[in-house]
């Protein structure tokens, strides 16, 4: 069942809660809004909705508001919420599922962070292992932010902390195979 706003856009999708529950394998209905997750969250200050609000919104089926929120991207993946939840609601898994759906449907609000993940994975697909220098350069080109961190970056290069060339990797096709299957 869907509920629409006056512009005809679906704002509530009753099945959303069930979808997240199924994909994350966690019992979101158990949440009784005690706020333990939000109080321990290190990124809370940068979020548009607090973690406990996201859980409530998922239960209510506020699909688009959740999938276009900053919260799911500025989550630092520190695992504190799920560790402290008295009802074993695994918010870490919920966040993963929300990011996955948001990317799949092209709704990611924090483009910089979503781009970072994409470039990170593209590099693994290309080289088998992460090559930090090319990742940083690609990220800079993509975000058109060429000059921040130039100084520490140069310092890292001079100290031999950034490998210039990626290593040769014999079984690269096996890693690429994983990515090819993931696309199916």
């Amino acid at each position, binding site marked *: 069942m869907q509920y629409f706003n006056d512009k005809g856009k679906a704002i509530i999708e009753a099945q959303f809660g069930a979808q997240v529950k199924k994909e994350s394998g966690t019992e979101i209905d158990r949440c009784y809004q005690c706020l333990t997750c939000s109080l321990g969250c290190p990124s809370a200050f940068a979020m548009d909705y607090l973690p406990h609000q996201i859980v409530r919104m998922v239960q209510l089926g506020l699909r688009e508001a959740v999938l276009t929120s900053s919260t799911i991207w*500025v989550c630092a993946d520190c*695992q504190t919420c799920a560790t402290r939840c008295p009802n074993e609601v695994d918010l870490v898994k919920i966040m993963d599922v929300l990011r996955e759906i948001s990317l799949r449907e092209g709704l990611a609000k924090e483009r910089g962070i979503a*781009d970072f993940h994409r470039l990170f*994975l593209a590099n693994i697909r290309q080289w*088998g292992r*992460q090559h*930090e220098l090319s990742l940083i350069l690609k990220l800079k080109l993509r975000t058109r932010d060429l000059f921040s961190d130039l100084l520490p970056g140069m310092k890292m290069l001079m100290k031999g902390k950034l490998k210039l060339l990626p290593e040769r990797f014999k079984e690269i096709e096996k890693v690429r195979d994983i990515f090819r299957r993931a696309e199916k």
Partner: protein
Amino acid sequence: MTQPTAPGLRYAYYPGCSLEGTAREYGLSVRAVCARLGIELAEIPEWSCCGASSGHSTSRWLACTLAGRNLALAEGMGMDIAVACPACYIRLRKAHHEIKSDDSLREELSRLMAVPYQAKHRTRHLLDIISHDVGLENLKNKVVKPLKGMKLAAYYGCYLVRPPEIVAFDDPENPQCLDALLDTLGAEARDWSGKVDCCGGSLSLSKRQIARQLVDELVEMAGRAGAEAMVTACPLCHANLEMRQTGTDGNKIPVFYFTELIGLALGIAEARSWLKRHLVSPSGLLASYGL
């Protein structure tokens, strides 16, 4: 000076990408310290990236198979895995956990690897291995240059302690093993409340201002507790703590890898060369202790 390997201290070693790049000094110190402590690390041939945060943030399937490939390679070697990077550690442990309880994932991985994957072996972090398999008593016997009461804040961060049912070998809210290890080396681990707070490392490149705020809070807390340097077992925390402190060059707090300090205390000659790679130089601090 190699010493005979104690029986059982052999592991399939998963270095992870950072230890060959931004955290090269961590990689070098891990190998040197393990050799000295009689831990044999057999590098997993053709290991690949575990997928890190970007893997599980975009696809559970990808996260499990990218990490799983390495688990299967290690299983072929018949040994538990030793890993130094906590981000790799949690990925490998989580994948193991998920693959074990999901038949379709296990079959998929077996197909990919062309051998049946049985999820038989464990993944262990080196802090756990050194604290519990080598043991602090053995470590203490090998200390030749004690750290003279240097005041340190043991920083555990996230993935060595959370989520406890997947990763923990210590208390998730107030862990002690790194503190105990530093005390064993002759340093003074200060009690402080930032031990397991997140530094925002996963956002260090993509959302700088969040990382900066979290790092500054941690550095301030460590300073208030009387620590003159922080100690980590994580390459992402190390890079983030060094890069995102907002102090001027002179008042930034140095950050050590725990293996670098073990190397110094055991009198390993190359230890100095590892420290030269830091962005925040610890040489002034070490000189003030005559080290």
